[in-house]
Structures are given as structure tokens and as C-alpha cells.
């Protein structure tokens, strides 16, 4: 009986997280605030970089670093939106009235993950095409992007929840998120470099493992700590 209740509770948490995700997606499709912010940022920096460097001059070291820097700062411009929007429209209390904190955090996290995937799906192929970036191990790059996105979205979501409750919303987000998410950035660049070399120069498995472990740690910490932010 006990375990049945628990199972039902888990199922309900999942369903409600999905409902909140769907609500945010619906809202996003009607306004496109976050999507536009991230997307335009990524495109503008991509073209600026391409224009400044030219198409044939950059080594794969620089190209892989630039790719992650574009993705990183583009996501910084949009990930905070998810909580700031609730706080500024005074819907945070309404949401608090009907849903548990964990459900809310998971819903927002899924939304941010999907948002980043959408951006990557467009920006990465474009980047590879425009910058003449030769990728030898596509699967490796895909794995790095996958785990990296989980890490970025996890850290971005919990920091977004923090700054939504503070007085200086826009300015603080990157300041708080940058040092925490730097492991993702550094490891992501390293794996991408590896993927762009014909013969793997180091074993990428341990780096992918650390990307994965980081994502797990930050998402777990986020779930555990979100209650304290949200109920404040």
C-alpha cells in the first residue's frame, strides 16, 4: 500500500511536470521571448565570428572553443526567462498554489532542455557549414552536446530560480551561472576538439563521463534545493 502510494506520487509528479512544461511551451509559442533571445544571440555572434575570422583561417582548436562560447552565452541570454516571467507577471503565487515545487522545477528544466536542443539543432549545423569545421566523429560531438545541454540547462534553471527572487534580475544571471557552468564549457570544448581530429588524441570516455556526472550532480542539487528558493 505504501509503495503504491509512492508510485502514484511519482507518477503524479511526472504528469504535473509535463503539464507545466506544456503550458510553458504554449506560452513560448505565443510570445517567443526566450526562443528569440537565444536564437538571435546565437545567430548574431555566429555571423560576427565568421565575419571576423574568415572561413579558412581558424584551427579546429579555436573553432571548437568558439562553438561552445556561442552556445554558452546564447543560452545565458534566454534560460533565465522561464522563472523571471512567472515572477514579473505575478503568476508565481498562482503556480505555487496548485503545484509542488519539484513538479515546477522539473517542468521548467524540461522546457529549458528542449529550448537548448532546438537552438543547437539549428546553430550547430549552421556553424559547421559556415566555418568549414570538419567533424570526424559526429557521434562524439552529439554525445558532448547531449550531456552538455543537460548540465547547462540544469545549472541555468536553478540559477534562474535564484535570480528571479532577487532585485537585479538581468545583470546577475550570467555572473552567477558562469563560474558554476564553466566545467561544462571546458569539458565540452575539449571533447569537441577531439571530435574534430581524425585520430582521437585522448580517450574521450572519461571526459564524457565527467560531463554526465556534472549533469547528474547539478540536476540533483537543483531538485533538492529548489524548495528552499521557491518557498521563500
Amino acid at each position, binding site marked *: 500500500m505504501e509503495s503504491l502510494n509512492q508510485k502514484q506520487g511519482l507518477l*503524479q509528479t511526472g504528469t504535473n511536470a509535463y*503539464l507545466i512544461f506544456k*503550458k510553458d511551451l*504554449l506560452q513560448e509559442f505565443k*510570445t517567443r521571448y526566450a526562443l528569440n533571445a537565444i536564437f538571435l544571440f546565437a545567430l548574431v555572434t555566429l555571423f560576427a565570428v565568421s565575419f571576423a575570422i574568415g572561413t579558412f583561417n581558424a584551427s579546429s582548436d579555436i573553432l571548437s572553443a568558439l562553438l561552445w562560447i556561442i552556445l554558452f552565452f546564447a543560452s545565458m541570454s534566454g534560460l533565465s526567462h522561464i522563472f523571471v516571467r512567472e515572477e514579473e*507577471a*505575478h503568476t508565481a503565487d*498562482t503556480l505555487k*498554489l496548485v503545484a509542488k515545487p519539484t513538479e515546477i522545477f522539473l517542468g521548467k528544466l524540461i522546457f529549458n532542455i528542449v529550448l537548448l536542443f532546438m537552438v543547437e539543432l539549428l546553430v550547430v549545423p549552421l556553424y559547421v557549414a559556415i566555418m568549414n569545421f570538419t567533424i570526424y566523429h559526429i557521434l562524439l560531438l552529439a554525445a558532448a552536446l547531449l550531456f552538455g545541454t543537460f548540465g547547462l540547462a540544469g545549472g541555468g534553471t536553478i540559477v534562474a530560480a535564484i535570480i528571479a527572487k532577487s532585485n537585479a534580475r538581468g545583470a546577475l544571471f550570467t555572473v552567477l551561472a558562469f563560474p558554476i557552468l564553466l566545467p561544462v564549457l571546458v569539458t565540452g570544448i575539449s571533447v569537441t576538439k577531439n571530435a574534430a581530429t581524425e585520430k582521437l588524441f585522448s580517450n574521450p570516455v572519461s571526459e564524457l563521463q565527467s560531463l554526465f556526472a556534472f549533469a547528474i550532480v547539478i540536476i540533483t542539487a537543483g531538485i533538492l534545493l529548489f524548495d528552499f528558493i521557491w518557498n521563500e
Partner: protein
Amino acid sequence: MQLIAESITKYFNEHIIFKDIHFAAASGSCLAVLGPNGSGKTTLMRIVSKLLAPTAGTVTFNENGQVLTDTEIRYRIGFLGPYLELYQDLTATENLSFFAKIRGLTDYQPAMNRLLDQFGLKGREEDPVRAYSSGMKQRLKYVFALLHQPDVLFVDEPRSNLDAEGIARVYDLFSEFKKERLLILATNDSEDLQFADERIEIRVAG
């Protein structure tokens, strides 16, 4: 259903809002929270409905001597107030069905239609909330607060933005609601007090 609040105290930084508020209320009655502007009526409402944690004190909901958990409370209270907004970009139906589903209601369509009709919003339910007038938004908030048939209804500023007809509907609702369930009002308006069986006055603590 019984609501008990014991020695509720709230500070913002060193600034004291109120201190040691006690009260109890049960189904079949109406409780009114009174006080001048800025006295902390809204803060008290948010604390009693568990939206905000008090600095000290406890709020408990009992049913037949059994204390309800936070999740159970969430399903059984309705709340409307000026700071509880609905999603402006979504339509009324989208808003209401989101809240209904998340509260675990399955067959909410008939109730939703009836309430929309009752509050004179029929025909406008597919418009985004952004396009509503402030009075219509207030009516929609009543629909939101009542959709899941709560046992306790919190209303902060019941009349705000409503016209005479809207107020009449709300008063009908109040007299019906307090017969079997618990109604908690926060108001400054003497007319609203006709429903109150019990009053709590917040005096600014010195």
C-alpha cells in the same frame, strides 16, 4: 474542515508586520480579516493559505481531527487576490484547463462551462486573458478559484474592479458558499462584512 492559526508572527527584516495572531474557523462560516491599507491583510492571507511561511507560528487544517498535508490542502483551497494573476498570453480555457489538469481534475468541462456562464464570460473564453478588461479578469479569477470545488475559499479584495452586476453575483456566491464551506475574506468594505460571522482586526504592532 477546521482551520486553526496559532500565534502567527511575521517580520520583514526588522520591521514587524503583525504579532501573535490567533484564530480558528470551521466550515459553515465566514471569517473576515480587517485592517487599514498596509496593515498586512494580504500577508496574513498568504500565510494562512500556505503561500508564505510565517516568521513564527503555525497554521493547520483539520478534518475530523485529522491534520491535512500540504498536498491535500493544495487540492482543497481556492484563492483569489490581486497578486495572483493568470497567464496573460493564454486564453481563458487554456488557463482553466491547465489549472484543472494540474489539480488532477478529469471531468472539469461541464463545471467550467457552468462557471463561465455564471460569471458572464461565455463567448469570450477563447480570447487571450490579455484582451480582457480588468473586471472580466476579476470574474475569471473567481472561475479559477472555484473550478475545483474547494472546501475553503480565500478572497482578497472581493469587489475590486467589479461592476454592480458582478458584485451581486459574487454576493450570491458568498451566501451560498458559506452555508456548508469556509469562506475567508480580506476587505475594507463595510458591505462585505454582512457575510462575516467572525472578524479579525489587524492592528499595526508597535
